[in-house]
């Protein structure tokens, strides 16, 4: 960070600059936070570095002795060997603990939270070896070694800046210099004092940048975490959409549908009672008949719509039962074969169900087919759905106006896929592959 950059950052944070800005910076909380941070870094970094160096030295000495041929009593050889083996294990925990302390320093004094990288799981030898093959271990180690040298250095620099006038006064007494150099001496120390906030901030920023890079998760790990989060939230989204459909279906079934049945039934009773009664004016009879017909039609339309939302039988009896209902309603002969011994999750079943309904609806709308075939099979962890027809072909999952694109998206949302083979002239085969753990 440049001086100008630090200045800009400070004035942005502290409001407009002015002749008093350098003075205000001296008392700004940010300056002091940065200073405390660096002073804490001085001690913490130094202490961690000392411990790690000592342990490292111990290991190196033990290993070196073993390699060059140990001398001395046999017990000493055992101690060497134990040290050579134990140190890498102990160091791992030490590094982790040191990183935790350092991250705490950033969190408390800088308000910067650095995510802890995840340690590979495993047991036995894997647990010992794996961390040493992970980049993050080496990065953290690098930070602690850097901090052991640069941390104390930065801490001392910033202390010297803040204390410059006092130091100048203390040492100035011993000087036998002339007036001019004495003035320069004090002007220089004042300049250092006024520079202290920016020095502190700049160094703290550099420290933060290094820590983010070295103590935090690496790029690959961050991406892996992100992918994991995305996969989880996507799954939740799919499940939420699915349960929302169920809820709407249930509400419609319990509410509007029952009312409409009741209405149609009452109109039916009225029609049965007065439809052929000559004592009732013809207009009234016509109205009753028309209303009854309307209610019956509305009921049928609503029934088709509601069943399309989520058939209750899918929950109860699974895909086979639900699909035979779909197939039966098709205006063309459809051969259905469902071979799913063990049921898939409700979301996957729902997607499979809608895939078949939509694909068949497409066949009816676009294919001019005379017959169709639906096969649903489960092999291992996958559910395979094949819908084929003998229509004129030319269907595409990219084309607008067909529901195939929506189906492809639905399948992809659960890591499935949809392929369409539909040469001009036909036949058309839509294959959907879904996970089914």
């Amino acid at each position, binding site marked *: 960070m440049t001086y100008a950059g630090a200045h800009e950052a400070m004035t942005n944070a502290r409001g407009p600059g002015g002749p008093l800005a350098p003075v205000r910076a001296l008392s700004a909380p940010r300056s002091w936070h940065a200073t405390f941070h660096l002073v804490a870094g001085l001690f913490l970094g130094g202490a961690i570095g000392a411990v790690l160096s000592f342990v490292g030295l111990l290991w190196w000495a033990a290993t070196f002795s073993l390699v060059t041929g140990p001398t001395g009593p046999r017990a000493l050889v055992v101690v060497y060997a134990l040290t050579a083996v134990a140190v890498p294990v102990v160091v791992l925990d030490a590094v982790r603990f040191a990183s935790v302390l350092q991250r705490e320093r950033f969190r408390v004094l800088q308000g910067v939270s650095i995510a802890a990288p995840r340690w590979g799981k495993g047991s036995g030898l894997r647990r010992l070896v794996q961390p040493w093959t992970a980049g993050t271990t080496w990065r953290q180690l690098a930070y602690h070694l850097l901090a052991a040298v640069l941390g104390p250095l930065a801490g001392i620099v910033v202390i010297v800046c803040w204390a410059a006038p006092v130091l100048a006064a203390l040492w100035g007494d011993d000087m036998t210099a002339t007036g001019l150099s004495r003035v320069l001496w004090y002007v220089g120390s004042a300049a250092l004092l006024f520079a202290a906030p920016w020095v502190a901030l700049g160094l703290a920023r550099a420290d933060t940048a290094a820590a983010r890079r070295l103590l935090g998760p690496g790029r690959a790990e961050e991406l892996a975490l992100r992918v994991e989060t995305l996969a989880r939230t996507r799954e939740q989204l799919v499940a939420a959409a699915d349960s929302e459909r169920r809820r709407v279906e249930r509400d419609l079934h319990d509410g509007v549908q029952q009312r409409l049945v009741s209405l149609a*039934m009452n109109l039916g*009773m009225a029609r049965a009672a007065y439809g052929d009664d000559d004592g009732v004016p013809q207009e009234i009879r016509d109205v009753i008949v028309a209303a*009854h017909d309307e209610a019956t039609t509305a009921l049928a339309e609503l029934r088709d719509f*509601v069943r399309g939302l989520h058939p209750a039988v899918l929950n109860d009896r699974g895909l086979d039962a639900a699909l035979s209902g779909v197939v039966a309603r098709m205006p063309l002969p459809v051969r259905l074969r469902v071979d799913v011994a063990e049921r898939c999750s409700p979301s996957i079943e729902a997607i499979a169900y809608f895939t078949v309904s939509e694909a068949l609806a497409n066949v009816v709308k676009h294919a001019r087919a005379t017959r169709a075939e639906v096969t649903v099979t489960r092999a291992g962890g996958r559910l395979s759905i094949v819908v084929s027809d003998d229509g004129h072909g030319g269907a595409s999952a990219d084309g607008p106006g067909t529901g195939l694109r929506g189906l492809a998206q639905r399948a992809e949302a659960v890591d499935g896929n949809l392929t369409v083979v539909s040469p001009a002239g036909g036949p058309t085969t839509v294959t959907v592959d879904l996970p089914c753990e």
Partner: protein
Amino acid sequence: MRVVLAEDSVLLRAGLTKLLTDGGFEVVAAVSDGDKLLAAVDEHRPDVVVVDVRMPPTHTDEGIRAALVIRRQHPKIAVCVLSQYVEERYATDLLSVDTAGVGYLLKDRVAQVSDFLDALRRVAGGGTALDPEVVAQLLVRRRDDPMERLTPREQDVLRLMAEGRSNNGITEALRVSHSAVEKYVSNIFTKLDLPPTDTDHRRVLAVLKYLGT
């Protein structure tokens, strides 16, 4: 005829009670779930039970389960199941015990008052009444078996038989002569390898074969 009614919607329960009463049935109990239905059946021993499929507590297939229990425990009591949607699988379950005295209709059908009452009387009298939608669904499953030996016309006749129609009813529905219907029926019996015994019994067997249960 004495009826026990099970329907969880208060509105519909009241409406159906009125419809049945107006239609000459005596509604001896109107309940709201499967357990109460079984208790009411034990208590009143009705001639026929009218039951909705989706009822509390799970709102899935309580009605079908209750109907199956009634079929087993009281084979003399006819059961007519009403449902917002008809499902082939439920029909197969229902018919697996016996096809006599069974009805499975879309709830919508209650709006066609006289048709519904006719169907219910047929069921109460030991006949069958299957919704055309149920029959259509069952047909889908039976496309690749002996049924294919039947001509389309004969399949039509068999489907109407499955719905519980008499020969007169079939004559009316298909607008063909009575003798033609008799000929189709006898062809169906022959093609399905049903020996000439009691006609009604053969009818039930034909329907059973057709439904594949």
